């Protein structure tokens, strides 16, 4: 089946994973019990034994002095997300020649971060944590929560793209019979947000951006005052509902 890959550009399909150096799953928790909210985001190694999940949950609850009811909720949430991740494992993923733009737009405590850059899905050496660390150093961000938040945001986006990738590959495999023409449209649809590599890296164009484009790809950092944070929080709440 593999040899009949609809993606002619992908020579070596890989098994599903997060396209980074470490195959770590971004986990996001948003739990509310009796008016008490617990929100967190972290990364989890999917090859860890599942027994760790409960241990982790217990530990977190204890450390944060949360009501014991959170333990099961947290464990369940993590478990669900891990199971979802594992459901993709083992499937073929065609990442060849795909560079996607990653956009960051997040608020961590009082820091507002906006950024825009390209990420190569074929680069299994990439390291979002390292990137985030450099980013914080370069931008002079002192809040220790910002770095991990950026890394997780990147991982989430990559995760999403990988999932899309796998499902579209599966679909195109199903649709393969007698519908060769579909391949390209399928590809283009899937990689609709991917960069046009030939345009960017072709021999005619320089990889140095034009000056007017620099602003687009320049990271923006805003330090918000407490009032602004509150206002923004309220806005986010509203959007969430």
């Amino acid at each position, binding site marked *: 089946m593999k040899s009949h890959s609809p993606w002619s550009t992908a020579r070596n399909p890989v098994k599903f994973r997060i396209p980074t*150096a470490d195959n770590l799953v971004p986990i996001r928790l948003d739990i509310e019990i009796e008016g008490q909210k617990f929100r967190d985001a972290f990364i989890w190694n999917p090859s860890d034994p599942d027994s760790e999940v409960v241990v982790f949950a217990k530990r977190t609850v204890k450390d944060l002095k949360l009501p014991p009811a959170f333990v099961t909720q947290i464990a369940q949430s993590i478990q669900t997300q891990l199971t979802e991740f594992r459901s993709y494992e083992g499937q073929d993923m065609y990442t060849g020649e795909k560079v996607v733009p990653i956009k960051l737009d997040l608020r961590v405590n009082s820091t507002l971060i906006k950024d825009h850059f*390209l990420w190569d899905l*074929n680069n299994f*050496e*990439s390291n979002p944590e390292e990137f985030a660390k*450099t980013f914080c150093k*370069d931008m*002079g961000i002192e809040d220790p929560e910002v770095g991990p938040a950026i890394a997780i945001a990147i991982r989430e986006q990559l995760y999403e793209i990988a999932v899309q990738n796998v499902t579209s590959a599966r679909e195109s495999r199903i649709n393969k019979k007698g519908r060769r023409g579909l391949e390209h449209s399928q590809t283009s649809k899937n990689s609709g947000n991917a960069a046009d590599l030939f345009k960017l890296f072709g021999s005619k164009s320089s990889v140095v*951006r034009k000056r007017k484009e*620099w602003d687009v790809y320049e990271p923006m950092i805003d330090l918000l005052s407490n009032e602004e944070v509150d206002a923004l929080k309220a806005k986010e709440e509203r959007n969430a509902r």
Partner: protein
Amino acid sequence: MERITRELELYTIPSYSSWFSWINIHEVERFSLREFFDGSSITRTPRIYKEYRDFIITKYREDPSRKLSFTEVRKSLVGDISVLHKVFTFLVKWGLINFNVSGSDDGGNSGEGGSGTTSFEGKEEGEGEWKGRVKVEEGAPHGVRVVAAPNSMKPLVPPPPPPSVGGDGGGVVGEVGESGFKWPPLASYSDVYGELMLQEETNKGGVVCGNCKENCDSKQYEYTKEESFILCEKCFESGNYEKEKSADDFKLKDTLNQAVDWTEAETLLLLESILKQHGDDWDLVSKNVQTKSKLECISKLMQLPFGDLMLGAGLRNGGLLDIIGDGKQAAVPSNESLESAKAEEPSSEVQNKDQQNGDAKCEGPPRKRVCTGPTSDAGNYMMKQVTRISTMLDPHITASAADAAVTSLCYENQCSRELFDDNDGNYFDSIASPEASNPERYPSNSLSDIASSDKVLNIKVRLNLLLLIRDADGDADNAVGDKSPNPSEIVGISSVKNIIPLNLKTRAATATSLGVAAANAKMLADKEEKEIGNLVAIMIETQLKKLQDKVKHFEDLELIMESENAQLEEAEQSLIMERLDVLQRAFDAGIPRSKVA
């Protein structure tokens, strides 16, 4: 435009990055950033890498005192953020960017960027050791000059290779080394003289024992399987050496052989006694020399460049002269052949020689200088070579070469020229004999003949070398009417004249010979050139002649053609005439016919 002018400025990069070149991609880059060179993607090609690299470096050099951050760079570059980061880290690691600022990070540089713009972690590890600084001129990336950074208190040390980059950085430093790839040699100072110095030290202090590292004074034992390993007597007798070496492998070596210093006076005495008095009766010789043993005397004579030859020659008169005046210097007659009228003006030369000897006496002994040469084999040999070379040329050239040599030597050694001039004003005379060009200094006899002055010079120079032996030889050359000072006088004089260090003399001689050789080469070249010119002229002439011959040939042909043409015209004329004639006749015959008709 701005960029071009900037590139002409000097930038400081570490010496281990001297491979860097704007034009090329070095193997270090190929190794560390392999993904750009394996053709795996159109997003990573050597061209793109070069664009990344050049942009980042140029960006940094817009203001080298400021630390360039990755975030600043990436907004201007299209490409995978991770790959960009890798390139950036690579450049930082090799000091191609952010090198200047690294040392003074805590200074004012980071002020504008806040604490966040301090350096990357990996880089700081090695920072303390990076004392070696190299300036590379952009125009010539290979011409690396090592300069001590003004603020580095430590002596210049070769910087360690940059620490390998962790994570996704260019962490291939180790692998690269293992895979047999050779790092470019450190561009900075390497201790080429260390060994020499060590050697010198050992020479100075005698031979150093391989075991106790102390000087071996009288006796030493050489390990026959490895020449450089030497034991001193003490260590040998106490069995104080490595076990795998057996006592049988050691060979007693008498250090006296080589370590003994011979003063000039001693050498003179030795030669004198050998030549004049005792021949090869070494017991007597050593008695005469007094300060040295029989063994020492023999080995010293062997070490002299002509030693073994002399022994072989059976100490005949003139044998020595033949030896020293050997080879192609046939033009220079030996003392004996002088008499046999081989040279053009033998008598005058002989006289001249007398003259010089006399001259030597009254002028202070210029030649005795060179006579002291035999104290050092090298020096003596050198002198011989110099003499030989100097005979090939005009004395003026030799003189000026010697002069130049001494001048530069004096300059180099910061010693006064007077050392040479005053001490024995005629030092050069001994080599180059400028007097030859100043015949008026001589009482007008044979030397007025410039043509013979060359020969005179040759002889004179040779004499300087031979003098000692000749002196020692005493009555042997009596035909010349030798008025040379007796040996004791020589000894006295030479010890006085010994003020110039021997190596200085040797160097002067070397330089002189070089100069002379150069002059000689120039002369030869000139000659060759002239010859070439001649040949070319001949060739051209021949060609011209050939052409002229051709022209002549053509002219002949033309003449033939012309005559043929004339003949043809003539024939034509006659033909026409004939035709006219025929027609005329026809008309004549026809008209009446037509009239009839």
